[in-house]
């Protein structure tokens, strides 16, 4: 397609979809080493704060429409985003530990506010975070891990941390592959099905949204069917457990040991895979053990804040690869090759 035609396409997209077209154009213009999709910081301050952004290494922002041009003039890549834009977008939860779901239980599984299931449910969706101080980096990681179109309103105090996370993402090798899943979920768009997805994601039970039962999955869930009555979803945790049992732990593409606060996303193309580890605990976790179906001979790990970490204690057989990540802050990415 000739350059003029490309400009025309963007103009048409902008006409009909406004911000999103702008976003698409921005990504098309991104340097080759930039990730295909990275979340955007919404920065409402004036251009006089440009130095702070530059110090944080942030060159791309979303800004109020009346300030966008000034920011562009200061050398930033800018997406104009007014209130209408946020009204249109789906608001996300602040990623965090929200308490303990079952204090009496010795399993003491903490309740986590996470958004991965929303991204998985609606990969083409448009989202935004409105974050308290201390959560910018985690939210950037979460959105990036799921390749989500997300804008983040952050506390200015988090600018440096946000910049560090963008730099970490920018330096990642590998690619975003299609999601790996063991379970198909037929989405009726109901809140109950959403909660089932939430609990599946929480337990690292990998799912994908499908229109009809898909033969590649051992388990396909359609809420309201004879196998999965809607009433059962009233207890989504139990429901997720039923699905887990039906799938069988031995058949899961991913197992996570040694933590109850890490949610993973696995993508892959059969020969290569990327595993994203999101640690919602707010504390460093040591010795997270991972088991992936498939025989991977090459494993590289990078952990935010810890640079490169060496996976260790490998176990490898014909069916699965196991290893430990010695240290994990809020985010790590593991690239695997067969």
């Amino acid at each position, binding site marked *: 397609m000739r350059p003029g035609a490309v400009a025309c396409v963007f103009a048409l997209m902008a006409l009909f979809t406004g911000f999103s077209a702008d976003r698409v154009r921005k990504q098309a213009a991104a340097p080759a080493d930039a990730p295909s999709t990275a979340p955007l910081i919404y920065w409402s301050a004036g251009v006089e704060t440009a130095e702070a952004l530059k110090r944080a290494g942030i060159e791309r922002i979303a800004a109020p429409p009346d300030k966008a041009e000034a920011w562009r003039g200061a050398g930033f890549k800018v997406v104009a985003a007014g209130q209408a834009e946020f009204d249109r977008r789906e608001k996300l939860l602040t990623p965090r530990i929200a308490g303990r779901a079952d204090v009496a239980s*010795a*399993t*003491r599984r903490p309740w986590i506010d996470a958004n991965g299931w929303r991204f998985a449910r609606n990969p083409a969706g448009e989202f935004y975070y409105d974050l308290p101080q201390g959560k910018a980096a985690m939210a950037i990681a979460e959105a990036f891990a799921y390749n989500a179109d997300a804008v983040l309103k952050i506390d200015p105090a988090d600018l440096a941390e946000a910049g560090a996370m963008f730099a970490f993402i920018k330096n990642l090798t590998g690619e975003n592959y299609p999601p790996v899943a063991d379970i198909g979920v037929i989405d009726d768009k109901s809140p109950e099905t959403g909660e089932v997805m939430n609990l599946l994601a929480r337990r690292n039970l990998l799912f994908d949204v499908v229109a009809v039962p898909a033969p590649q999955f051992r388990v396909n869930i359609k809420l309201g069917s004879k196998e999965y009555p809607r009433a059962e979803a009233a207890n989504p945790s139990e429901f997720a457990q039923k699905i887990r049992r039906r799938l069988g732990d031995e058949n899961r593409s991913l197992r*996570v040991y*040694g933590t109850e606060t890490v949610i993973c996303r696995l993508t892959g193309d059969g020969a290569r895979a990327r595993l994203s580890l999101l640690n919602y605990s707010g504390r460093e976790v*040591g010795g997270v053990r991972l088991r992936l179906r498939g025989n991977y001979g*090459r494993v*590289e790990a990078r952990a935010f804040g810890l640079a490169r970490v060496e996976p260790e*204690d490998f176990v490898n057989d014909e069916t699965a690869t196991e290893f*430990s990540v010695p240290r994990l802050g809020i985010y790590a990415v593991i690239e695997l090759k067969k």
Partner: protein
Amino acid sequence: MKRRTFVQLLAATPLAPTIQAKGDAPKYKVVTPYKPAAMPGMPGPYPGKVVSVKSAKCLSEDGLKIDGEAVREMMERGMRALAGDAKAIDSWRRFFTPDDVVGIKVNAGGRPWVVSSHEIVAETVRNLTAVGVKPQQIYIYERFQGQLDQVNYAPSLPEGVNIFAAERANARNDNQNYDPHVYVEADFFGEDDTRSNMMRLVSQKLTKIINIPNMKDHGATGATGCLKNIAYGSFSNVARTHNRGVSQTLSFVGALAAVEPLRSKTVLQIMDGLRGVWHGGPFAPTLKYVFFPRTIMFGTDPVAIDRLLLDVIDDERKRHGAISIWNRDEKTLDFNNGGDRDKDPNVNIIIREPGHVEYAGNLGLGVHDKREIEVKEIEL
């Protein structure tokens, strides 16, 4: 990066037996590359033998102070009686050589009143060094650093003795000190993490272990002594066995204790019964349920000692009019209310499983039948 190691755990399959517990006990997958010793430490050379040494002098009248000299005498008499030697040092030499790297599994959970006492731990270390084991080859260990910090054994020990905890606290954030190649896998209550891993210190560093538990009531196991101290104190992720009034400790305590190399390396049991706790265990934050057996038990058979312990705890409970550790009446159960349990010895938060001792006996860890247990009682 290429894999640094390539471990075929499948090769260890013959060493990975499947234990199918009776009734509705869970199925365990045991993974370990370690083989048992020719004579595993448990039950060791003295199956069914327990030496019980009692001394009125070991505690002050109010039970609050421990007399180190009395403890030393109790230890000497106990070890001699166990091994049948004229000199205690010869008895210690039966178990340890100067080359050994020795772990001392203490219990710091019942702080401040019912923990492995400084005096017994210090006397144990003194005897090890007398055998020729260097202080640097001795490890006092527990799972949680916070507990060890509070008990603070260091002032009682020679310089160089290591004090080691696998985790900072019971928060499931530290797994580096557990061995990913040695674990028991079981799904008890639908928990996400279904593995309990052995401490690397135990599997990779120590050559021998001395187990120093206390005489304690336990809300899940009925009583906690040798078996639970060594099992739950050497593996990760074990609290998951208690859930909403139900405990899977009946089978899991023995299943863990039987895993190699823990079973082979644990060669000596010294039960600290100077003080005990008859309710609210394994904790003893106040003196409310503390009692004073003024006893130390010696043996190599953890099952035999624990079988006696069950009666010690149950008898003490009876003395106070409390329900038996064998009581399985669900009316006693208030699983959401640890506070009521602490106030009232007739409230359980879990149906207790004192049968874990018999279960461990059936796994070959020792002698459970009291008729077959030889108890040598010494009163000083």
